[in-house]
């Protein structure tokens, strides 16, 4: 398999196309512009559709439409643009439509800056828009992993009929690394008999999110919750040098890679430290943290935010081990020296 040298943004776009995504709707924003750029060239060639909408809000409703028609469809943006999509995401989750949304996070709040950040964790994992819903959230830490998770994202979206978010940051988007596009096993044919594909010869399908009868709305919500419970079978996490660890760093995405070097440096000094890297942020790997909390002293959560994933780690660990936090924000990326120094402080 030939290795290509691509940015994370381009690689995600190519992986989406290879997963059968022929429709993309978006609105430009740094640091994810290479995704729409790539799509704008490739999709028309493939007979699909690329459309730069008049706003993020319009784009997400175009996604709603294409997904409702049973098509594999994607949108991407960065933090402020993702905020604008929240209403539409709530509707898509309510309507149980599959789609993939990429958020290459940048520093917030407000317009913030354009440098990398992880400060949209709450928004991504806790619902984001109104109502009792969740997105399935995947956090790649290399360009190669971004490729495989993009393929998985479309399958998960179809499997659960749910919107899936790929949560990256400016570094994942802008960084170039070698990638291989392995032949994925063909996605199984997902049942799309619910799609609005023309009702000739069959009863019409209805896609809606309005349930004025509270009994019916409660039933609908319970059905969604049931789905979120089932998603737990697709939880993913990477354990790195955790077997004999006395203390572990918990980090995801770009920060997890930086922390991995910190772990290597600390291991060279004889410190028994490991790394837990959640790959699915929703559903969060609570069980893995719970299990490891029994045999370690402390978890140091490192994020490019002032403390968001740390709340899920605390819930999981549930007092069985100490939980400490180190974060940089506003577009500042912590160095591995900095993380290693922080962990050494936490030893005492």
């Amino acid at each position: 398999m030939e290795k290509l040298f691509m940015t994370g943004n381009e690689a995600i776009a190519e992986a989406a196309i290879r997963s059968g995504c022929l429709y993309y709707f978006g609105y430009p924003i740094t640091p994810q512009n290479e995704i729409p750029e790539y799509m704008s060239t490739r999709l028309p060639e493939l007979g699909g559709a690329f459309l730069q909408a008049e706003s993020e809000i319009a784009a997400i409703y175009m996604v709603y439409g294409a997904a409702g028609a049973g098509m594999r469809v994607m949108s991407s943006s960065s933090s402020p643009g993702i905020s604008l999509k929240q209403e539409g995401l709530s509707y898509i989750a309510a309507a149980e439509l599959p789609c993939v949304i990429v958020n290459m996070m940048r520093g917030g709040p407000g317009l913030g800056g354009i440098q990398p950040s992880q400060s949209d964790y709450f928004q991504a994992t806790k619902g984001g828009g109104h109502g009792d819903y969740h997105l399935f959230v995947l956090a790649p830490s290399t360009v190669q992993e971004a490729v495989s998770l993009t393929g998985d994202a479309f399958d998960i979206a179809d499997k659960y009929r749910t919107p899936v978010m790929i949560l990256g940051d400016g570094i994942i988007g802008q960084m170039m690394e070698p990638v291989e596009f392995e032949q994925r096993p063909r996605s199984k044919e997902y049942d799309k008999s619910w799609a609005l594909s023309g009702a000739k010869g069959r009863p019409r399908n209805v896609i809606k999110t309005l349930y004025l009868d509270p009994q019916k709305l409660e039933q609908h919500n319970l059905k969604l919750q049931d789905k979120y419970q089932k998603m737990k079978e697709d939880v993913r996490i990477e354990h790195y040098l955790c077997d004999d660890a006395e203390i572990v760093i918990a980090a995801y995405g770009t920060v997890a890679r930086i922390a991995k070097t910190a772990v290597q440096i600390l291991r060279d000094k004889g410190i028994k430290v490991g790394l837990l890297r959640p790959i699915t942020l929703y559903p969060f790997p609570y069980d893995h943290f719970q299990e490891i909390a029994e045999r370690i002293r402390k978890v140091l959560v490192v994020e490019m935010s002032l403390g968001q994933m740390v709340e899920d780690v605390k819930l999981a660990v549930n007092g069985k081990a100490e939980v400490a936090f180190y974060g940089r924000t506003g577009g500042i990326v912590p160095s591995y020296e900095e993380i290693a120094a922080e962990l050494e402080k936490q030893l005492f």
Partner: protein
Amino acid sequence: MKQQQLECAANTAVDSRTLYTNLTMAGFGGQGLMFIGKLLAFSAMKAGLQVSWIPSYGPEMRGGTANCTVVIANEPIASPVIRSPETLIIMNNPSLEAFEPRLKSGGTLFVNSNLVTCPATRKDIEVVAVPADEVAQSAGGRKAANMVMLGAYLAKVAILDKSQIEYGFLEFFGSKAAQTLDLNMKAFSLGAAFSQADCKTKKES
């Protein structure tokens, strides 16, 4: 002086089992630093190595500063983010000011001495001053000063040879690059020769 000799010796024997190096290159937008960063990383990938390339993507404008960081290793790269690189390639004064303090102790600083007029201040680093504009001019065009610097760098940190860079140049940048291949590879060779002479002088002195 011992440090310099070690640095010079390093260019003949790279231990393939433990290959790991990183560098940051910085200068004005348009000087081709992103280009040589991508070229180096891509060529190293083609040589079977692990690589990562991270650009600065700030709100920069034409003529503003630009930088990128490359990591090359023969094992999977953990952190692609490097606060203190082992090597710097610096093409303007503002970049020297920004990056010299961050260079790893014992690291090597390559400067284009035609443009970097401020002196380096640290004593715990090796400085290789390459008049890259002049050298590039003698190769046929000042625009190839970036390739002079890349040649100078690779003569010291012998992870790739000229043919691997030439292959990378043609593969990655395609037909457009082929038109300027001769100029660029000549500049690369002259840069390498300059760096080797510099290394030899330091050894003897």
